[in-house]
């Protein structure tokens, strides 16, 4: 198989600028996408898709820095604006027009909160981007793993769903898999948070009866049913962590896997590891 694959050299904005080029899109990787071992696999899957369809893209590489979202949600407006203003300087210096990101928190911050500070870009979440690729026929969703009949339930990210009214894009991406898509009772606008938003990701929960991710995982497991194996699909790095922890807590790793929608598409497209 070695001869059938090629090594990807991920282009950076700095290289592009040095060559006097501008990419069509900037792929904003995000801190989880860059550092979290599990979510790095999502980043890689998404880059495989970008390479596969031949989009002219670039990343910031080591020039990227936290958007400031966790600081802002935790109440640290000062640190948020420090991050935002320095990021905007970098983005504007590269004349960035269009940003795609796999993180709903980065997406929300870049799209909604950067304009007030001088950062105006077209910002697209990877669920919408993947939906476009599928609609345009650039991704055939064929040649790889078959998902036909497999039970998948989609967990809505708050910062994609309620925060930005994106409910259908990830579902349409999953629909392309021809899988058995089942909805949790609390979905779309009524979706239950995974428990990580508002900077909860970085702290212990306040005292209570139960952890939120356990409540949500129980709902997802009940929806998938006890009959067989299933997938919890997410479109957010924090949801991914919380649902994975929940599945582990319920000792269901054997039966239920948590995947990002980009990973599922990469698998179905046969883009391998």
């Amino acid at each position, binding site marked *: 198989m070695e001869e*059938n694959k090629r090594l990807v050299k991920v282009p950076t904005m700095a290289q592009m600028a040095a060559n006097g080029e501008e990419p069509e899109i900037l792929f904003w990787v995000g*801190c989880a996408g860059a*550092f979290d071992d599990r979510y790095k696999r999502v980043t890689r899957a998404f880059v495989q898709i970008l390479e596969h369809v031949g989009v002219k893209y670039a990343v910031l590489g*080591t020039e990227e820095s936290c958007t*400031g979202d966790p600081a802002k949600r935790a109440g*640290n407006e000062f640190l948020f604006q420090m991050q935002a203003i320095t990021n905007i300087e970098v983005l504007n210096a590269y004349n960035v027009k269009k940003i795609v990101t796999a993180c709903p928190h980065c997406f929300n911050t870049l799209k*909604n909160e950067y304009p007030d500070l001088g950062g105006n870009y077209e910002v697209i979440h990877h669920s919408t981007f993947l939906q476009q690729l599928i609609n345009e026929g650039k991704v055939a969703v064929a040649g790889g793993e078959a998902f036909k009949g497999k039970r998948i339930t989609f967990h809505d990210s708050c910062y994609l769903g309620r925060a930005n009214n994106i409910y259908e894009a990830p579902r349409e991406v999953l629909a392309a898999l021809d899988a058995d898509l089942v909805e949790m009772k609390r979905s779309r606008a009524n979706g239950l948070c995974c428990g990580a938003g*508002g900077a909860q990701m970085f702290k212990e*929960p306040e005292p209570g009866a139960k952890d939120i991710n356990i409540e949500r995982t129980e709902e997802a497991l009940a929806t998938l049913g006890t009959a067989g194996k299933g997938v919890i699909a997410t479109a957010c790095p924090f949801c991914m962590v919380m649902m994975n922890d929940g599945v582990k807590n319920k000792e269901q790793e054997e039966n239920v896997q948590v995947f990002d929608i980009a990973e599922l598409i990469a698998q179905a497209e046969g883009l391998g590891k």
Partner: protein
Amino acid sequence: MIGIENIVFLLVAALGIGLFVWQIRKIRKNVLLGRDVELADNPSERINKTLLVAFGQQKMFKRMLPAVLHLFVYVGFLVINIEVIEILIDGIFGTHRILGFAGILYSGLMAVNEVLAALVIVACAIFLWRRNVTELPRLKGVEMRAWPKMDANIILIVEIVLMVALFVFNISDLKLAQLRGAHIAGAYPISSLLVDALGSDEASLHVIGRVGWWFHILGILAFMNYLPSSKHFHIIMAFPNVYYSKLVPKGKFTTNPAITQEIKAMLDPSFQPPAPELDAEGNPIIQRFGAKDVEDLTWKQLMDSYTCTECGRCTSVCPANLTGKLLSPRKIVMDTRDRMEEKGEHPAIYHPNHYKEMGVERVDVTEEKTLLRGYITPEELWACTSCNACVESCPVNIDQLSTIMDLRRYLVLEESAAPASLNAMFTNIENNGAPWAFSPSDRFNWADELYVPSKN
């Protein structure tokens, strides 16, 4: 014919309306304690939203049964109020059913009124049942102390009594007309079934009719003056509150321009931040970062608290509350109103609710006379996941999350009182550009050894 009864009525009505206006002015003053914020943009979008969400009750229909029952009461309130106009005219000028000239229209209105009045009675009875017998979970909680509970029951019972008074007035009127062989304007599908319920003594029927009429109008005047002290004030506030609600995506939180100026000055020594605004005595106004007390919130956030119906939809979908944490978005809103009325003016009937006095132990408030800590504790604020479920669920577009965030900002920016793990996260972002302790030079390592199938 204008007699002594009409003069008494005129005085009573003027007094009732005057008292109401006096209370509204107090509430206006309270709301204006809040910081100014510009919310007049996009009037056409705001009008549409008001028509859909406030007039059209759009968000109520997420839960069918209460939506339909509430619709009866809401439409009943709107339509029966047309009759109140007639009652006022009749009362002042000593006329009798002055709008009767409208013929078939009048008959239709009276008939619809009777049906609606009956539906209002049924709906209120079911609401009382849900509140006191089946004890719907969302109608309970630490913030639902003695006053909010009593308030809800008072309103439901008063509404039933007002509707009964309307029927008593109609029945006696009908029976009198029947006994006298006279024609009476209007159609009365329900009262005509009960026409013999009050006997057939003309003198006493006349008295009963007058008592029913007086009771209905005095009840309405009293009810109007009760509103500012009650959750039922939503029948007025829902409309402006929806009109001024957030039009931008829910995920967009406010940006503090004062902080932007500070950062720009830090990054660029030549940057001249604008001079701070001066107060009446010429001293610069030092703005707090975030909110510690009601005057740090915006007038819209204060208006939110006067709009709250205490229905608990927000709390019932809050992930923190669902899993046993202290946070209840409804409590945040109710506390804001209590604190505002403690600090500012208070309406005719004022019931401050203090958790300690109510024997609620879990909310560990202090003696501080501020919204933060005196009413709302950091533990509640730190339980929020900012998921916007509360905002989404609110039928009158209250933004509970914005208040939570402003209180958090005060804790962090003015007191550096974030939980230790969040302070560690801040330090990581400052030093590494990521919320975790990874070296920024490793940020691009994910791209190592990445392959794709070659197309050939």
